[in-house]
């Protein structure tokens, strides 16, 4: 399979358009292939930049890249302004893509600029497969909470979508450090006892470095291990 075909499949996966079996194959490939993860991350970052979403950079400069891309986008937009003209929904579905091609051509050039910038920034970039993949599939909350005509929203998403208001009460990692591992235990115990609607807090704790996984453990016996292999 060519690189182009792989990229095409990846974008289809992002869009949820692959058949189940094919999605399974691509997902497996994604999980195993760092190069594909990087591509996924780049696509995701493109989406995040277009939606002006805040990007996790861990202090390593990705936001600078995004900011520069946005500046370039703004500069090009000044030369080739995108007018958020309402378009009838039917027209958008039946050939609306062509009508918006001008705007997307600009966006595509920005997208390519992002990819180029990321390549230049590789030494400073975070693991984009982890960080930015979410941006690709996380629709801008503002667009979700204020439903409007499909075509109008598409144009607006490119040109004037507001910053999503993700709340960051305080830095999660430092908060964990402040109270230490007992807090992790409390959160896990709370999740187990009350079955809150969203139980991802405990999974976040497991996936992150919030606690030492080997703490408060004892070695298993040879018999116990053998039964599991």
């Amino acid at each position, binding site marked *: 399979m060519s690189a182009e075909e792989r990229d095409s499949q990846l974008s289809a996966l992002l869009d949820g358009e692959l058949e*189940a079996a094919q999605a399974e194959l691509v997902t497996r490939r994604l999980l195993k292939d760092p190069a594909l993860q990087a591509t996924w991350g780049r696509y995701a970052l493109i989406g995040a930049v277009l939606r002006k979403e805040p990007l996790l950079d861990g202090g390593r400069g990705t936001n600078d890249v995004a900011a520069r891309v946005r500046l370039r986008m703004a500069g090009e937009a000044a030369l080739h302004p995108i007018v958020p003209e309402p378009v009838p929904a039917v027209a958008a579905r039946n050939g609306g893509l062509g009508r918006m091609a001008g705007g997307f*051509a600009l966006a595509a050039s920005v997208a390519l600029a992002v990819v180029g910038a990321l390549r230049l920034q590789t030494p400073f970039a975070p693991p984009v497969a*982890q960080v930015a993949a979410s941006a690709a599939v996380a*629709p801008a909350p503002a667009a979700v909470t204020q439903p409007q005509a499909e075509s109008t929203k598409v144009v607006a998403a490119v040109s004037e979508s507001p910053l999503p208001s993700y709340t960051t009460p305080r830095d999660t990692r430092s908060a964990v450090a402040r109270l230490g591992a007992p807090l992790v*235990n*409390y959160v896990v115990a709370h999740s*187990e006892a009350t079955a809150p609607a969203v139980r*991802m807090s405990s999974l976040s704790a497991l996936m992150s470095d*919030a606690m030492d996984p080997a703490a408060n453990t004892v070695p298993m016996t040879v018999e116990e291990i053998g039964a599991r292999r």
Partner: protein
Amino acid sequence: MIRQALLLLWALVLPVSAVMAAGEDPRVWVERMNQALATRNYDGVLVHQVGDQRSTLRLIHRVQDGHLVERAISVDGSGREFIRADTELVGYFPSRRIVVVEKRARSLGFIGGLPGLESGSLSQYDIGEVESGRMQGRVVRVVAVRPRDTLRYGYRFWIDEKTAMPIQTQLFAADGSIIEQITFANLTLPARISDDQLKAEVDTEGYRWLRREAPQFKPGELVPWAVQSLPAGFRRLQRGEGKQQRKPASHLMFSDGLASVSVFIESAGTPPALSREGTPRKANGPAQLGAASAYTAHIDGYRVTAVGEVPPATVKAIAEALRPDLDGTAR
């Protein structure tokens, strides 16, 4: 290449549109979602975001013959995997070359529904009308449960019309800001998931296998507790010990019908009861882990920690509302 970029960008900036779905009951859709999460097999790549922290993982979830098996695989390059089979959780940590096995109190998947909405007695929330829209190529129903004050969060679900699975879930504050978001980037619902798909792909040759022991708990003198004044809408669910298998501390629970808050009580004169690392911790104050807020207060010689997926002010108010009830008149 440009055409591909155009199509990609089309997909990225066209996440959803929504219109009112007149006459549909949001409770019915949430109940369908709860049922789907409890009974369906699913396999998807999901993105979890809290604040500016994002993580991506693959989740394979099987319910077969009444048994839950779930495998979570990190896509951040760490290679971490977690497999939960009923009440047992096994974690694989390649960077440490260890496997950790531990028991959990209940058999629960990592993604939960929203129990309690069907009760119809939720005075602190407004349940919005069902909206119809599209997300990631699927027709979805959008259900929002909005808080009426700042003491609790709201919930918003994008429920796939065909499968009733939540393609996206949000926890949001009264001002509309998103606290936590879970989105399936890709989701399939296989009729059958094989045992092999639920096995870790980590080669454990040379790994150390560890069992996590129940935390050492020195509760000191346990006493009944009275509640002075709870945040509006919250009530105490149960009292005392014996409700949990692990018994990590004296454990009280409060709920407003949807949101829950746990309170863990230890004697302040004893070492931290739940420490897995033996690390000292700050005596008082707020903290945050994911969407969960926590607040620890010292009250009459006890360390009282409230934890829940509610705003920081709510856990603080609940922790500070507790008093030892030494004469046995606890409410």
